[in-house]
């Protein structure tokens, strides 16, 4: 709708309205209000907070210890627990992002979304608010993983953490966008559970959180490389393990990280570029989906 049409409409009705809310919510205010709601709800939901950490921490400890001793050392003598730690950070970010994005399903089911949609506000702002809320929650979770890293016996420096946080923010944004894009097409919570079985969990396990991506059979190699999550996990690991990776000898049998395309090795920045592009695509889809929502 054009601005002038709205102004005309305002003038026509002004005489009839008894009292009127003053002011008008700007784009950023709407983003902020929706963002606040997401964050607030998350911090109220203790069960969700705790459960979000349980699986990655258990996997880190159990796999790191239980499996780590039985499998051959990775090139450069990187311990398995150290290796999967960035994977677990990525996993917690992935789970939180996608799940909060998909919470748009329950919003719809409980009518909240409709109530927001009947407010005279930009749908794009609602969408961005929702995504940034989910991304914030995911980022906080990722940060907590770093905070407890020393307790889990992981070597990580503050400098590395400082580099990782902006990357994780970007990754969360992309994945929450993916969640909203998926969630806005779903009608019920049940169909979401189905989707997570057939799409989200495979995408998570095929993203290289548990294994080096360049040392897998050819069929899996294809799946790993068309999986957008792979491009989020790789740069997180490259930064988290930068010190250890530097010590890997040049003649190592395979690259521990860095996505390879037909012999071409992507740099960390190129991988981040893929994340950015995919994030922008997801944002576009999510906005379009929310706009056409009834």
């Amino acid at each position, binding site marked *: 709708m054009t601005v002038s049409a709205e102004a005309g409409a305002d003038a026509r009705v002004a005489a009839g309205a008894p009292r009127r809310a003053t002011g008008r919510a700007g784009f950023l205010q709407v983003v902020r209000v929706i963002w606040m709601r997401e964050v607030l709800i998350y911090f*109220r939901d203790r069960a969700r907070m705790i459960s979000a950490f349980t699986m990655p921490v258990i996997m880190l400890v159990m796999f790191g210890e239980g499996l780590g001793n039985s499998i051959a050392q990775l090139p450069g003598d990187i311990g398995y627990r150290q290796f999967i730690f960035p994977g677990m950070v990525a996993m917690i970010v992935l789970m939180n992002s996608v799940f909060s994005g998909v919470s748009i399903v329950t919003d719809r089911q409980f*009518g909240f979304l409709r109530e927001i*949609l009947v407010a005279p506000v930009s749908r794009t702002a609602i969408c961005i608010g929702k995504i940034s809320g989910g991304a914030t929650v995911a980022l906080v979770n990722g940060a907590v993983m770093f905070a407890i890293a020393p307790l889990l016996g992981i070597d990580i420096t503050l400098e590395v953490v400082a580099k990782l946080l902006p990357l994780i923010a970007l990754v969360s944004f992309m994945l929450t966008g993916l969640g909203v894009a998926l969630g806005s097409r779903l009608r019920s919570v049940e169909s979401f559970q189905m989707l997570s079985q057939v799409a989200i969990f495979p995408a998570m396990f095929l993203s290289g959180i548990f294994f080096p991506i360049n040392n897998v059979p050819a069929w899996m190699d294809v799946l790993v490389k068309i999986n957008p999550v792979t491009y989020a996990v790789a740069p997180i690991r490259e930064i988290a393990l930068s010190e250890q990776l530097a010590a890997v000898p040049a003649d190592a049998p395979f690259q521990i990280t860095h996505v390879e395309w037909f012999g071409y090795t992507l740099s960390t920045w190129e991988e981040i570029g893929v994340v950015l592009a995919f994030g922008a695509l997801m944002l576009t889809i999510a906005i379009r989906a929310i706009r056409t929502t009834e």
Partner: protein
Amino acid sequence: MSAIVAEGLTKHFGEVRAVNGIDIEIARGAIFGFLGANGSGKTTTIRMLTTLLKPTAGSARVEGLDIVAEARAVRRRIGVALQEAGLDDLQTGRELLTLQGRLFGMPGAQVRRRVRDLLEIVDLAGAADRAVGGYSGGMKRRLDLAAALIHWPSVLFLDEPTTGLDPASREAVWRYVNQLCAEDGITVFLTTQYLEEADRLAHDLAIIDEGRVIARGSPADLKATIGTDVVTVRVGGPAEALDRAAEAAAAVPAVERVQRADGAAVVYVPNGARAVARIVLALDEAGVEVGDVSIAQPSLDDVFLQATGRHLRAGEMPADGGAA
């Protein structure tokens, strides 16, 4: 200017003709009731009028604004409380209303004042800072009503505002709606499947069935189209006694029609008060044991029955309310 005007408003979902060419005009400041059974097209209509759904054909204006071309301006004028209360269990009532106010761009101080006033009006001031998850069904509905009112809308849409509420909560919602309409001059558009609700609350009524308006007018006018009073006589004894009672009642002068229903003879007669003595006398002479006798004005159910040939059975209010 009318608050709401719909012309040929239509919505098809594939083959399903949910709303099939609705024409209505609703005066400013009225409480308009949209009465129909489940699946009759009420909710689809309300979703079109509140800009959540685009019509397949036809058009509608709310406060003079087109619901499609001027959707955002429409949204600024309307308050909407939809069937399932759209509430977050983890937020408090006050937070929820504040969020809603913020979405309408109300400045902080104004929101705080408005939220406080509204919580007072819907009797939730005491529960304002508790999580909504702990509210009863009636409290949630009241909060939802308050949320819809936050920005002083000039038209309020309520989709089945009392479905599933216990009688006391239902009365409370009716009281607020009446109060709003009288004091603030808000136009209220409410859908209901309850005959009693439509009768008690609406100044103006449309009965919808299979996506079409089948009767239109004030509850009193609609009932007047039936034209007669309804005298119901409960009859004791065997089934055969009921047949005799019906026969005897039909023979009484001025009686237009007699129906047998659930052990009672339902007698349609223009002046029930005057005819009742003669009816009872006639039954007594026929040797029928007369139980309860009641005289009633025709109900909206009779109107529905006449227009559709069916009772609005689904619309009977639960005696003791569902969710507390």
